C-alpha cells in the first residue's frame, strides 16, 4: 500500500474513528492520538480480524478498547476522563421525566466503567453511549446475545443500586 492509498483510506474512515475516540475520551489531543493508534494497529493486525468480522465492527472494538484502557490508566491527562464521559450531554432526545430518567441511568452506568471488567465496560458503552441493540453488541464483540444480555443486566443492576444509594432514579 502506498502513501496515496493510506491517505485515501484515512480520509474515509478516520472521521468515524476520531469521532468515536473523542466521544469516549473527551480530550482533543488524546482522541487524536488514539485515532492514530487505531489505524496503526489496523496496519499491523487487521487481516485476520477483517476476514472474520468486517471493518466497522472491528474498528468499533479496537477503538473502544483502546479508549477505555486509556481512561482507566488514569494517566495525569486522563485523570478526569471517566467522569467527563459519564457526564456527557448526549441524550435520548425529548424532554420530561422519561428522558431525565434515561440520562440519569446513563450517567450511572457510564460512571461505573472504572469498576467493570473489560467486556462489561465495553458492553456498557455500546448499550448506553452507542445505543446499540444486544444483537449489534454481540456482533461487534463476538459474544452471544445471551452473554451480552447477562453482562448488561449485571451492569444495570449495579447502576440501579448506585442510583438508589445516591437517592436518585427509580428503585
Amino acid at each position, binding site marked *: 500500500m502506498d*502513501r496515496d492509498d493510506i491517505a485515501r483510506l484515512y480520509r474515509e474512515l478516520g472521521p468515524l474513528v476520531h469521532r468515536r475516540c473523542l466521544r469516549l475520551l473527551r480530550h482533543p489531543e488524546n482522541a487524536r492520538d488514539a485515532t492514530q493508534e487505531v489505524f496503526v494497529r489496523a496496519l499491523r493486525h487487521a487481516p485476520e480480524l*477483517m476476514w472474520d468480522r468486517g471493518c466497522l465492527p472491528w474498528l468499533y472494538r479496537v477503538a473502544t478498547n483502546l479508549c477505555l484502557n486509556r481512561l482507566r490508566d488514569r494517566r495525569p491527562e486522563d485523570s478526569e476522563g471517566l467522569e467527563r464521559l459519564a457526564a456527557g450531554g448526549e441524550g435520548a432526545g425529548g424532554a420530561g421525566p422519561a428522558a431525565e430518567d434515561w440520562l440519569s441511568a446513563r450517567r450511572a452506568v457510564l460512571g461505573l466503567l472504572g469498576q467493570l471488567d473489560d467486556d462489561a465496560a465495553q458492553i456498557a458503552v455500546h448499550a448506553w453511549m452507542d445505543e446499540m441493540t444486544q444483537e449489534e453488541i454481540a456482533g461487534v464483540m463476538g459474544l452471544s446475545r445471551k452473554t451480552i444480555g447477562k453482562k448488561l443486566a449485571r451492569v444495570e443492576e449495579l447502576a440501579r443500586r448506585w442510583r438508589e444509594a445516591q437517592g436518585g432514579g427509580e428503585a
Partner: protein
Amino acid sequence: MSAERCPSELELDAFELAGRPADHGLQAHLAGCGRCRARLAERDQARERFVREVYPVTLAALEAAGERARPGAGWLAWLLRPALLGVAAGVLLLSLAGLLWWRGGEDPPPASYVGVKGGASLQVWARRGERVFPVGPGARLRAGDLLRFVPLLPGPGYMMIVSVDARGKVSPYHPPAGGRAAAVRPPLGAPALPGSIELDESRGPERLWLLFSTREFELGEVEAAAAEGLRAAGSLEALAVLPGELEQASLLVWKE
C-alpha cells in the same frame, strides 16, 4: 430498526459509509426525527474537524507505520514478522474503507466498485492459504480459494449472492441452499456473512452477483434473468446487469 427506536451509532456509521443513500431504510426515520437529523449534522461537523485538525498532523506518522508494515521495509521487521503480514495488512486496510481497491502499480478503480443501486455495496474477501486479500474487478482466483462476503445493504429486504459462469450456470452462494432469497434486517455495521465459499476446479470467467429486493424472490427468477441476459449480451464479460427489477451489483472474476 423499529419506528420508535432511534438508530444506534453503529447503524449511523454504516449509513455514513454507504454514502447516506436516498432510498436507505433509515431515511423514513430520519425524516421524522429531529434528534437523528441533529446527530447527522454533528457527524458532518466531526468530519470537518477531523479534516481540519487531525488529518494533517497525524497522516505522516500513519504513512510511516504503513511503510514499516510493508515486507522488506526493514530487515528487523522482516525477520520478526510472518512474510505475508505486511502485504495482507496493506491490502486489508484498503478494504477497511469498503470502498477502495488497489493493486500495486495500478490506479484504483472508482470507490463504489460493487455498488448496488441505492448506495449499498458488497465487499468480497478471499483467503488463499495464510493470505487474506480483497477481491476486486478482474481478480484472478484459484480452485481452493475461500471467499467471504460483506454486504452493506440499504435496509430490510431479501438478498441473494450467486455466481454465474460463462455458460449461464447459476450457483447460489448465499443462502447456500439457493431456493429463496434470504430475509435480511437493516445493516448491523456491515458484518461478514457467516461461513465461506470454497471455489471449485472449474476455470474461466465468473460473475459474482449481489441481488437485493424489498420483496421475496427465488433462485429460479435469477436463473431466468441470467439466461436472458447472456443471450442478449453475448458474453459474461458484457453482461454487467441482469434484466429485471432486482437491485444488483456484479463483480467479474477469473478462475484459473
